[in-house]
């Protein structure tokens, strides 16, 4: 049997080499499908790596509370994305924050509420600027460093703001003389007390692009916009050993606050990374489906070329059967050929995918992410594509009648 397998392998190699152009184009079909899957998986891996690294930097003492009770289910993510998030009433309230902060072992708690507003400076007017409403604890949790000035403090919180690095440039065309100037938001004037250092991390667990954001006190934000939607509460635990106990305490406290309505999630550790990248989960899920479709198209290419090959070699099949090949021998011969075509395509796709991932890493912060899981997935997919799309032509070849096949000439 092993001997025969080697023979099949050699036969397939010969046949593929003889029809080089045709085989290469077929492989390319598979390769494009595999490359896009690799690219997407690498991108996803690199994104969750980025977020994990960030959490590592912040420290292991981070707990996050988010609205909505369902955790991982895809439907909740879809709902969250489709229901115009910013207009939906968040289940978290500003009053929840001091309640959490009072708990034992909680050293800081900062809400995050985002509202997109138009900001007017002496030079420019910018619309749809993300305005982050939070409290003074924020800087204790988030390791943001200031380029100029200082973060909000209890004396100036009511009418002061902090600008992101890029936003400062956009509003005043400068960063070094921004502190002390004023901006107008919803008709109210605010003094700029600080400018953030460049963060350059558009993907983080807060879902905020700090470089482009304006930070102000949540009470002020609530005052000018009328209502604020808290999308997340960041909590710093006093000690890292009892995160589960602390998060349980937080859960119980909020549960009581909301009179038994459990419509929020308390997460710590790796669980934090997921919802922050929910948009990416959706997008990459969609992309994976598209890639899978292109893989199916590639598979149909394999099937097509195998059917051509079977038809072309009808006479050969007749001869082989006449000299003693069983139907199974013929089946294996053609199945092997399809398998080798798709595995070659898979290898080509693996290389192509990582070349693309590398090129992407030049212009984006996503470094190529290589893991054995990705490589295993690639091989399993290509092998199944080879078998699924190779079995029909192989069966067709195997079921050929030797007498008719012998009479057939190309």
């Amino acid at each position: 049997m092993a001997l025969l397998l080697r023979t099949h392998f050699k036969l397939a190699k010969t046949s593929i080499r003889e029809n080089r152009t045709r085989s290469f184009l077929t492989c390319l079909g598979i390769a494009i499908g595999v490359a896009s899957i690799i690219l997407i998986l690498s991108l996803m891996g690199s994104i969750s790596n980025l977020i994990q690294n960030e959490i590592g930097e912040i420290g292991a003492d981070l707990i996050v509370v988010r609205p909505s009770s369902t955790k991982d289910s895809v439907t909740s993510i879809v709902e969250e994305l489709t229901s115009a998030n910013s207009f939906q009433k968040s289940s978290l309230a500003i009053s929840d924050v001091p309640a959490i902060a009072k708990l034992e072992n909680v050293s800081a708690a900062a809400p995050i509420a985002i509202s997109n507003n138009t900001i007017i400076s002496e030079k420019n007017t910018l619309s749809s600027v993300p305005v982050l409403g939070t409290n003074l604890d924020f800087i204790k949790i988030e390791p943001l460093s200031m380029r100029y000035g200082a973060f909000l403090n209890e004396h100036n919180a009511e009418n002061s703001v902090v600008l992101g690095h890029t936003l400062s440039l956009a509003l005043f065309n400068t960063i070094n003389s921004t502190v002390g100037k004023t901006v107008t938001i919803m008709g109210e004037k605010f003094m700029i007390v600080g400018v953030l250092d460049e963060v350059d991390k558009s993907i983080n667990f807060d879902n905020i692009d700090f470089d482009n954001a304006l930070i102000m006190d949540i009470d002020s934000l609530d005052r000018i916009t009328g209502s604020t939607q808290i999308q997340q509460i960041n909590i710093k635990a006093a000690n890292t050993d009892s995160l589960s106990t602390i998060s349980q305490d937080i859960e119980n406290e909020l549960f009581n606050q909301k009179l038994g309505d459990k419509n929020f999630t308390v997460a710590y550790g790796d669980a934090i990374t997921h919802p922050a990248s929910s948009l990416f989960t959706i997008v990459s899920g969609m992309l994976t489906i598209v890639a899978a479709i292109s893989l199916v198209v590639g598979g149909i290419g394999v099937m097509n070329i195998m059917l051509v090959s079977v038809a072309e070699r009808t006479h050969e099949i007749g001869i082989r059967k006449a000299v003693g090949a069983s139907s199974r021998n013929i089946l294996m011969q053609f199945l092997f050929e399809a398998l080798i075509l798709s595995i070659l395509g898979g290898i080509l796709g693996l290389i192509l995918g990582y070349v693309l991932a590398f090129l992407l890493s030049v212009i984006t912060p996503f470094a190529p992410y290589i893991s054995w899981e990705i490589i295993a997935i690639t091989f399993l997919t290509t092998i199944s594509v080879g078998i699924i799309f190779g079995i029909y032509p192989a069966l067709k070849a195997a079921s050929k009648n030797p007498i008719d096949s012998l009479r057939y000439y190309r």
Partner: protein
Amino acid sequence: MSENTLIELRGLTKRYGYGDTESFALKDFDLTIKRGEFIMIMGPSGCGKTTLLNIIGLLDRASRGEYILNGENVASISARRQARLRAKKIGFVFQNFNLIEDLPILENVALPLVYTGYTKTSRLKHASNALKRFHLQEREYYLPYQLSGGQQQRVAIARAIVGNPEIILADEPTGNLDSRSSHIVMEELKAIHDEGNTIIMVTHNPALTVYATRVINMLDGQIDTDIKTVADANLPQPISVKIKKKKSEFSSLISADSKRSRKHKKSRRKR
């Protein structure tokens, strides 16, 4: 059934089509073939000669009747084992040679051994020996189209005997050849027969019947005449073909033969 019986056909019928289009390639065909026979089957086109050969060669199935091969009813043999039997016990020679165009002749000859579990090296060694017997060893790596018709047919015969089969089935092996090549091919078949193999050959050429031990004339799917020219007792000993047989033995065998064979040797020398 005598011990020397190789093939027994009883009431064999092959029907094509149904109803109005019904026609019979074979009709209640009975035949017993002994080991060591060289049978020539003659008859007009469409009398069922090729169908008979295909059924004996396990490429086709009869619609009705029994086919007993080596004491075993073929109907009870699985398709997979029938394929193995084709590889080991039966050698086919066709009118149009049926060599695989993309394979060098050495690999064409080795083809039946692929399915009987030989390693690649031993396959090619056996094939090379078989080709040597037919004086084609210098052309091992030629592709079929680079050879003449007579040479291609000798390659096909080498392929038929490479696995030491008991039965050689030849369907008009000289049909596409000129008379000189025909006689070379017939001499080769005769030599194989003299080593104790059973040969069943379909032909249209009455001149070739001198090689046969038995001539069967077929008409409309049935036996018309059946003439044995050699008594059963004088048939060659049923020993398997020894491809490695020394060349001296082989050539002495031929020189002891008719004028034609001498002519054929001369022509070979000329080449």
